[in-house]
Every structure is written in structure tokens, then in C-alpha cells.
């Protein structure tokens, strides 16, 4: 058995990262490291030049982790590396980034590349397997997460340590995010990345749109009641928008004032328009990563609504954001036989 075959995904990521950095192939590696709180992951940015010795790089790369850590979609950080600085006449050379990406993050990356926000040739993509992300909100319903002192993730279990030494063992699968449970493509296709890390991924989910269909089947007044209930929680913090990798407009419609589309506050109708339009703007672009719902501090059930547009674009136009540079946005094209059932006749 070779050294490579014995490496865990985490070790392989670290090996790749240190190689790419040392060989000067990238200016910075973007990955995840453990957050302070148990089961959280926080983005880790490792520049190639650390002005120090070899060990510095090894140590930095040693922080990188792979697992079900609850973390943001790393693609959300890309646009800021490549957007032009409008104050400068001459733009500085843009960095080459090594990026550790799960399947959903990779789909977001490809959408950004197709939309010319991020150059593909400046990215070294390290695809990683994914067994799903731990749902902290669900865990919090089960126990007082704030008192958990440490947590260990195993293939089938979560082991949480409480003060006093008690260990609670939970079934991992029970606490996986809905977005991951419903993931139709948890594995990264080899040809879509520069390096593919071997390892266990979830199986593709069946019945990906079941939740949406279930909601569709509810009576109209119940659907409105639920939409009302969820949007009433919103405090217009914009965490959903900021966490979303494909929400990158410099001047978001929600904050425009020269055409004042919606107000700035948590007025209910404005909140509803914000979400409806943001979801509409994700048509053909949402990678179903769940980062928006994960980011929401007040637990608005965004996915029931975001996945509706994903389903519609898929079913009406046969389009899902994928791993190809040649895909065209479904709203930039049309077919002669696009459906008209929704239209009115006198």
C-alpha cells in the first residue's frame, strides 16, 4: 500500500495544500479549520509566504480539517479576491488560490466562473468527499449545546462531552443538515477539479424535491400561514445573502435607494419581498448548499422556499447548476416550446 492510499481525506488535503504552497503553485490555500466551539469549522486562509521557516507552513497546514464541521460555503469568499478595486487605475495581479471544495461549494464556484466573477485559471480546485454537515440547530434542540465542552465525530456517531465528564453518544445521521440529506450529488466529479481527494461521500439522495412537493400539496391558506410565520422571524440582518456565494451584487436591490424597491427595516411586507426576490435571483444559480439557512440567526426556514425555485428551474427548463464551463444560465435562453400553462386566456 502506498502512503497516499493510507492517508485520510484530512491528511491528503494537508499534503496537497503544503505541496501547492511550497512549490509556489498557489498564493494562498483556502480551507477549513476547527472553530472554537465544538463541531464548528471556520475558514482558514494560508498564504504561501509566511516570512518564516518551513515548519511554519507545516504548522499552518496542520490546522486544516475535513469532516462534518458546520461551516459556511467557502465559495462565498472568492468574489472579494477577484473584484476590481475601483479606486485604482491599474489593477494589481490577482492571486492564484488553492481551494478545498465539497460538491455544493464546487457548483457555486462554477456558477461564479461562468458569470465571470472569478477566473477559472486562477483557481486550483481540490475536490473533497462529503458525508454531510452536522446540523447545529437540530443538536441544540436535543441538548444545551453551549455546555458541551468537546465533540468527536465518528463515521456513524457524534460523541459530545459535557462538564463533569459525561459523554453523550448520538446517531450522526439523525443530526445531518436537511440540505445534505437531500443532496443529489455529494460526490465531486474528478474532471471538474484539479485534484480529487479520495474518501467516503454520502449516497445521492432520492426524492430530492419531496419536501417542496409536500409543501405544494398544502392548501393555499396554510402555505401563506407558514410563509408568514417564517418571514415574521426575519430581522433583515442579511446573513443569508452574505453567506450565499452567488449573492455578490455590489448594490443589492434590497439596499438601493435611487430606485427604492423595498424599505430597510424588518417591516413584514418588505421582508417578504426581500426573500421572494432574492430567491428569484437565485434561479438557475442556487447550488442547494444550505448556507443561507445555516447562517440565519433566527432560524427562518429558507430552504422550503429556495428549493422551490431549484425544482421549478429543473422541471420547467431541465437545468441545474453543474460542473461545466459551457452551461448557459436558463434565464438567458429560451426554447420555442417553453410552457405556457401558467398564462391566462380570456
Amino acid at each position, binding site marked *: 500500500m502506498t502512503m497516499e492510499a493510507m492517508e485520510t481525506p484530512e491528511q491528503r488535503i494537508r499534503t496537497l495544500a503544503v505541496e501547492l504552497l511550497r512549490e509556489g503553485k498557489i498564493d494562498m490555500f483556502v480551507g477549513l479549520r476547527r*472553530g*472554537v*466551539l465544538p463541531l*464548528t*469549522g*471556520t*475558514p*482558514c*486562509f494560508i498564504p504561501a509566504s509566511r516570512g518564516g521557516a518551513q515548519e511554519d507552513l507545516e504548522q499552518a497546514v496542520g490546522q486544516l480539517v475535513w469532516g462534518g464541521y*458546520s*461551516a*459556511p460555503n467557502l465559495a*462565498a*469568499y472568492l468574489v*472579494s479576491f477577484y473584484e476590481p478595486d475601483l*479606486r485604482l487605475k491599474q489593477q494589481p495581479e490577482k492571486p492564484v488560490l488553492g481551494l478545498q471544495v465539497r460538491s455544493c461549494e464546487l457548483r457555486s464556484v462554477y456558477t461564479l466562473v461562468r458569470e465571470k466573477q472569478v477566473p477559472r485559471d486562477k483557481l486550483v480546485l481540490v475536490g473533497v468527499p462529503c458525508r454531510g454537515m452536522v446540523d447545529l*440547530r437540530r443538536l*441544540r*434542540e436535543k441538548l*444545551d449545546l*453551549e*455546555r*458541551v*465542552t468537546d465533540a468527536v465525530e465518528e463515521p456513524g456517531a457524534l460523541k459530545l462531552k459535557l462538564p463533569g465528564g459525561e459523554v453523550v453518544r448520538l446517531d450522526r445521521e439523525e443530526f445531518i443538515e436537511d440540505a445534505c440529506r437531500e443532496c443529489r450529488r455529494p460526490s465531486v466529479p474528478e474532471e471538474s477539479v484539479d485534484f480529487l481527494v479520495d474518501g467516503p461521500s454520502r449516497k445521492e439522495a432520492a426524492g430530492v424535491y419531496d419536501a417542496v412537493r409536500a409543501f405544494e400539496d398544502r392548501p393555499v391558506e396554510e402555505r401563506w400561514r407558514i410563509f408568514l410565520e417564517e418571514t415574521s422571524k426575519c*430581522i*433583515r*440582518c*442579511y*446573513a443569508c*445573502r*452574505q*453567506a450565499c456565494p452567488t449573492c455578490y451584487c*455590489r448594490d443589492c436591490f434590497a*439596499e438601493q*435607494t435611487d430606485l*427604492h424597491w423595498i*424599505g*430597510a*427595516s*424588518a*417591516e413584514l411586507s418588505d421582508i417578504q419581498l426581500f426573500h421572494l426576490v432574492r430567491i428569484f435571483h437565485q434561479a438557475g444559480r442556487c447550488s442547494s448548499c444550505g*448556507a443561507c439557512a*445555516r*447562517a440565519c*440567526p*433566527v*432560524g427562518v426556514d429558507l430552504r422550503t422556499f429556495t428549493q422551490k425555485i431549484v425544482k421549478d428551474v429543473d422541471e420547467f427548463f431541465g437545468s441545474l447548476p453543474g460542473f461545466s464551463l459551457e452551461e448557459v444560465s436558463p434565464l438567458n435562453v429560451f426554447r420555442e416550446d417553453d410552457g405556457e400553462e401558467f398564462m391566462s386566456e380570456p
Partner: protein
Amino acid sequence: MGKQKQQAKILDKAKLPDLIEALSARAVCLGPVRSADGPRWERLKPSSVLDLESVNTRLSPKAVFLPQREVLCTFRGDRLEDSPPESEAERTVLFGVRACDARALQCLDLVFGPGQSRFSDPYYLERRERALIITLACREPGRACFCTSVGGSPAGTEGADVAAVDLGAELLLTAVTDKGRDFLGEQEALLTAADQSHLESARNQAERARSLVGAVDLEKLTETLARDFDDPVWEELARPCLGCGVCAYLCPTCHCFDISDEVDSRGAGVRIRSWDCCQYPLFTRHASGHNPRVNRKQRLRQRIMHKYAYTVENSGVIFCVGCGRCILNCPAHLDIRVTLRALQTRGGRS
């Protein structure tokens, strides 16, 4: 000691619904109500299930005094109309405010007046005047709590009118202000006298809780912040930040706001105040398009400087009470304790 005993009363927890009923008659009564996602500040009914065990609510009670959306005035065309009617309630009673959140209100008082500021905010002050704050001492801190490092403590009574301590089957209620004393007087029928053992229990609980709070060393912070404004470490620290606004919205001392006008198609409208956040790119964008804080590094630095340096300069107080909400709710899992430590250890190395 004797004076303390006079001001200290006992409420049997079984009588809480009665207390809520009595209060609800003439006041808007708010408290942390149990929910699947943790306690939430809600209007209390006698049937409400209070959550007195969880560490803290997700949203701080600052929204009671500085609402997310507040109508400042209404107008029709170019004619200003009467101010919106004030609330009918005589009083707002907040039951179960944690010590950190009560201290935070005192920080907000510094901003909105009266006292140090030349300008008083009548909207905020009116709500403050009407409010009665009943704090609830923490028995066990959470993993993200660090109140003791910023001048607070789990059983602290700064900002309280009445301080409550959970002794199991009973609550020990102690008046802290005259308002609190009057309140306890009003509820006399439901209360019994406290004795030495109650006070002793409360003291022990406070000591224990205090010893459990995680400490953050902030000794070198002032010096670091004063000196290292241009240190490249800020760039590193700001990278994981998404600029999402959760930290500021949930922070009990953050108070920045935006004022905007909303007009309907008939020319009638409102001027509203709503929460704003220094992490948003638009926060400092000028009408010309120039933005003095155009990137994340500048904005993150601003947040830290404002809370830990500028407010100290202006009023001698750190605008952070160590409640830990920013740590618990940051989608990128940034930890302000890590940030502060990194600044102090890194300081001057460049």
C-alpha cells in the same frame, strides 16, 4: 445585613403565573419563553413556560428599547403629521434579563442619554423610563461567555431594578433601585421574607458561577489598539468575515441605526429608524460614491476599535458585556476572543 434582608424577598416559583397575571394587568410583561431553538423574548401570559435554565436568549432585549423598526414620524406630501401614539401600557416589565444584558442597557444609556451625551433620544428614553428590569443571576455560564473579563459578573446587578436569583423552588428577589423597591412593595401579597440561608445560597451560587466563566486576557488590549491600527494582522483577522450583520444585530450594546423615508404611491409616508451594521459595505458609503471603509479589513477593524477603544476613550466603558452571542451565532464561526488575543500577542511584531 439587616437592610439587605429587608429588601430581599422570596417568591415561590409556583406563584410565577400569579405574578405574571398581576403584572400583565397594568404592564407589558416580557420574559424568556421556552422554544425548541432556545429561549426567546416574548410577551408573557400566566400560561407561558419560562426558560430560566438556558444560558441566554438568541436576540438580546435591546429591541425593547431600540426596535429594529421604529416610526419616528409620519407625513403626507410635505406636511408632517402627529407623532405616532405612545403605547397605552404604564410600564414594561422585563423579567429574567441576564446580568450582561442589563449592563448593556447602561451602555446604551450612555449613547442615547441622559447624562453624558449632549443629545437625548426621546424615543429610547421614553421606553427606558417605562421599563422595570428584573435580572436573573446565571447559575452556569455558557461556553462563549466572558462577562468577567469585561467588568461584569454572572450575578451582577448593574442595570437591574430588581435582582432575582434562582434557588431551585424559589426565587430570591432583591431591590436594587427605588423603582425596584416600589415594585416589591406592590407584589407584597405574593412574597415572603428572605432569611440568611437564602442569602447564603445566593452568594455561593454567584461565587461558583463567577469561577466558571472563561477568562479572556485583555490587559494589553488598549495599548495594542492604540498602537497597531495599521498592522497587517487586521487583514488576516478580517478574511473569514462574511460581513453579514449577525454579530451587530444580536449584540446587546451595538446601537448603530439608519434613518430612511418610506413613501407610498400617494405621497404618504413615514420616517423610520432601523438597525444598521458597520460591517455592511454601505454603512459608510458617501453620496459621492466614495467609501472610507471600502473593504472588510477596515470594517472589522472599525468594529473592534469602536467597542474596545473609542467608547473607552469617550466614556470609559468597553462596549462589550461578554454575552457571547457574536461567537455563538457567527455563520463563519469567528470568535472575538480569538481576535482579541491575536491582536494582543501579535501587536507590534510587524
